[in-house]
């Protein structure tokens, strides 16, 4: 594939670089390549890590060398268009907006000369691409937020933000997987657990997947929270159109 670079990252990882910008097209290529590499089951590969720009492939040099591995990748790139790539899925994230769950939603509204209702409508209107996960376990780097609700970070970061909090920082929106300090403008909270070490699949979200926020009432929030704790919650997941 044109413009793809294979860059050594020490002796046990190779950075397969697709570009140097944040774009859904690059993300799509990285996702396709990751799926192709997994299907190929190349011996010696330990794991792969997608980011905005690249797929970092960790491998064991006693099983396969840098030259041998990049040759396999090169031939895989040539046949990439022939490999069926399943459509990305969209997962619904229920959010209780405002109140004590989203204490900064009025800041966001005031900053953008909107009502709280409009902020919620805008925030729940789009599908957000998960470019990658990083920073801490389960933290999604999301793209696709409307500039209409962009708001600078808080001047004084909070010492503790509850896990599940949904916030805005500049033109980005995100969800805190676990309790942590942070300076995002908090607009709501989801009862879903993005990270749960004791769950069979500890991290809920995947790079390349999309999320859609849905506004829920206090009662619904509490019901979902209980279902999540009991392990009976049915996640709403569907294939992305187009």
């Amino acid at each position: 594939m044109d413009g793809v670079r294979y860059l050594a990252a020490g002796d046990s990882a190779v950075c397969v670089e697709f570009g140097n910008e944040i774009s859904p097209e690059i993300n799509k290529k990285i996702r396709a390549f990751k799926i192709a590499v997994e299907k190929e089951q190349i011996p010696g590969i330990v794991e792969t890590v997608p980011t905005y720009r690249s797929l970092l492939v960790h491998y064991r040099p006693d099983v396969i060398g840098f030259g041998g591995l990049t040759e396999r990748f090169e031939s895989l790139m040539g046949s990439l268009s022939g490999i069926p790539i399943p459509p990305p899925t969209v997962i619904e994230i229920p959010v209780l907006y405002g109140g004590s769950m989203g204490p900064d939603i009025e800041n966001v509204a005031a900053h953008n000369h909107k009502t709280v209702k409009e902020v919620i409508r805008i925030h729940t209107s789009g599908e957000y691409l998960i470019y990658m996960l990083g920073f801490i376990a389960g933290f999604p780097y999301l793209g696709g937020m409307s500039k209409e609700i962009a708001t600078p970070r808080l001047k004084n970061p909070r010492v503790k933000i509850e896990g599940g909090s949904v916030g805005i920082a500049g033109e980005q929106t995100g969800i805190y997987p676990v309790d942590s300090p942070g300076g995002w403008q908090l607009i709501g909270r989801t009862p879903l657990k993005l990270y749960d070490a004791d769950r069979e699949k500890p991290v809920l979200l995947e790079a390349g997947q999309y999320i859609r926020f849905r506004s829920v009432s206090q009662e619904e929030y509490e019901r979902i929270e209980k279902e999540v704790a009991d392990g009976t919650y049915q996640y709403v997941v569907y294939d992305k159109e187009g």
Partner: protein
Amino acid sequence: MGVKFASGGFLTTVQDMGRTGYQESGMSVSGVMDQRSAALANILVGNEENEAVLEITLMGPMMEFTEDTVIAVTGGNLLPKQNGKDFPMYRAVPVRRGDVLSFAGMAGGSRAYVAFAGGLDIPLQMGSRSTNLKSKIGGLEGRKIAGGDEIGFRAPKTDLPNLRRRSVEPEDFTASERVIRVVMGPQDDCFTEKGIETFLSAAYAYTNESDRMGCRLEGEVIEHKNGGDIITDGIAFGAIQVPSHGRPIIMMADHQTTGGYTKIAGVITVDLPLVAQARPGDKVHFKKVSVEEAQKLYVEQKNRFEKLKEEFERRPQAGGELQAAIYAAVGHEARRYWNPAGTYRVVVDGEEYTVDLSVESEGLR
């Protein structure tokens, strides 16, 4: 029952070779900082290299054994003591219930490893026993060990084949100035020619801002072409990040999975233990090698481990001459077979061995 801690020391954690498979979810790998020392400790006591060990940092804990087993201590020399007496490092040593293992100081390096034959009774979490302090999982409740803690043994051993021969030459971590070999990239093209030259010629010193996540170095500023920020990219163990301030940070076991700073090079696997064992003030010079050279060294180290394992686990074949000789030697007729040096030459499967009978008889017990 297993081992009870009277004190936890400065930072003692349970670590194996790390929690792989979850980096795409943002979960750090963790695991031991010095993989060679930990692997050797495990090999010495007959474990898989990936078995969980104790990683002891600078000031060691004090622990009392509540069950017999065989242990090995490797890595930095933190002056291990068994009941107050010097404890030999890089050797498999049986310990008895009631024995106390403590550490008296720092004679070289900064991290010691203790492996226990048969492993520690620590549950696997997401496929690993490694402690991840940030995500609070693995090891002992995801935290460092403290006084009052107790860890059980999974399958303790009171003896191992070839016990007296289970030792290797200790690695010397006392040098305060080291050459560390690196593979350039992945973002070496973000630096000026002068920047690369600075990186490969200047001496850098470890600062006290060094921990399990990374080692910050100080020294001559490395010049970028357009600053040190990039669109977020993946990070490997040993990656050398250079943010816009121009000073290198070596990413260690607890490093974040991704990051937005330029990485000028990566420390090769066989030299990473030297970084893990460095102390604040120690100096480092970076030397460029090809990825092929680095991988050749990696394979050589792996082969050395395999050879040691084979040597330690080798048992004389039943009914072979060797065994006959040993049985005879340890029996009534010992004198007849024993030469004055206490050694015996035997041929097994066409290969000639010089056997120390006292060692072999212990190995067979």
